[in-house]
């Protein structure tokens, strides 16, 4: 059953802090139990490729916390050279999707 049928009017999401092109860094946060922020991406710096949708975070949704604050999700693009030491190809990139709370601004 889709979540839209469960609650009446969903609370508005936390304001989206980033736009396409912004430089962001993935936060190093402790997580108990469930998360979908991969270990390999923690602390990495990339740019916002696009905004995708607003939804509950993976830290809240599995616990049926339907009233928790929803967040903006983004596809974030990283240079492979920044992710892996000695990665030999200049132009290769990796994209993955992260909610707003896992990101902080990395300046210009």
């Amino acid at each position, binding site marked *: 059953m889709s979540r839209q049928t469960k609650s009446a009017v969903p609370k508005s999401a936390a304001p989206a802090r980033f736009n396409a092109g912004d430089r962001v860094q993935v936060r190093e946060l402790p997580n108990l139990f469930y998360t*979908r922020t*991969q270990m390999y991406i923690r602390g990495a710096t990339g740019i916002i490729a696009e905004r*995708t949708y607003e*939804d509950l975070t*993976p830290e809240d949704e599995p616990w049926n916390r339907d009233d928790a604050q929803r967040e903006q*999700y983004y596809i974030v693009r990283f240079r492979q050279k920044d992710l892996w030491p000695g990665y030999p190809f200049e132009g290769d990139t990796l994209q*993955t999707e992260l909610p707003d709370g896992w990101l902080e601004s990395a300046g210009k």
Partner: protein
Amino acid sequence: MVEEITDFEVLEIAVRELAIEKGLFTAEDHRKFTEWAEQIGPVGGSRLVAKAWTDPVYKARVLSDPISACREIGIDWAEPTGSGTPSDYMNLRVLEDTPTLHHVIVCTLCSCYPRPLLGHSPYWYRSPNYRRRLIRWPRQILAEFGLALPPEMEIRVEDSNQKCRFMVLPVRPSGTDGWTEKELAEIVTRDTMIGVALPRPGRTADDVRPVHKARRPVPHEGEARP
């Protein structure tokens, strides 16, 4: 891949039988859903790509509103089974390859895959081997599939770790001028929409991956023990 019944298959049978016993669904419900699930293949994706290759206006829609573009070719992500089971996953992104950019898709956390368009994922896509290695050594993995791309090209790995689902829109290969959509769809195989193969004239099937025979196989229902 090892050809042997797995713990998960045993678990599925046990959970299914318990659910039927408890009245959560009937065996008939399960049979109908299984038949639907097992017959979906990559045909929808192939048709989408072939249509995008021949119709630039449709291609623009594929990139800007992919869920609507899917509906136009008969794939409805809101009602993928046609039997009232809505999908929670309505965020599709079609990744457009160019002569300088090649995409390849993985789900490192589990095995997320655009099933309404491509059907079931191949077993290798779900293996820890692929999921752990593709993000770190993409070119080596592609080479294992027989695909070696020049270093000047950008290889972009898409790790589908949340609710977006992805499919690759490959570059239309040369040697296909004047082809009909049907002819084009025949060379758009599943592996070309994951990103581990490139479409080309004459290539109408994905490469067969090795299967290791079980040393002590458990016979399936109805089979004699060897």
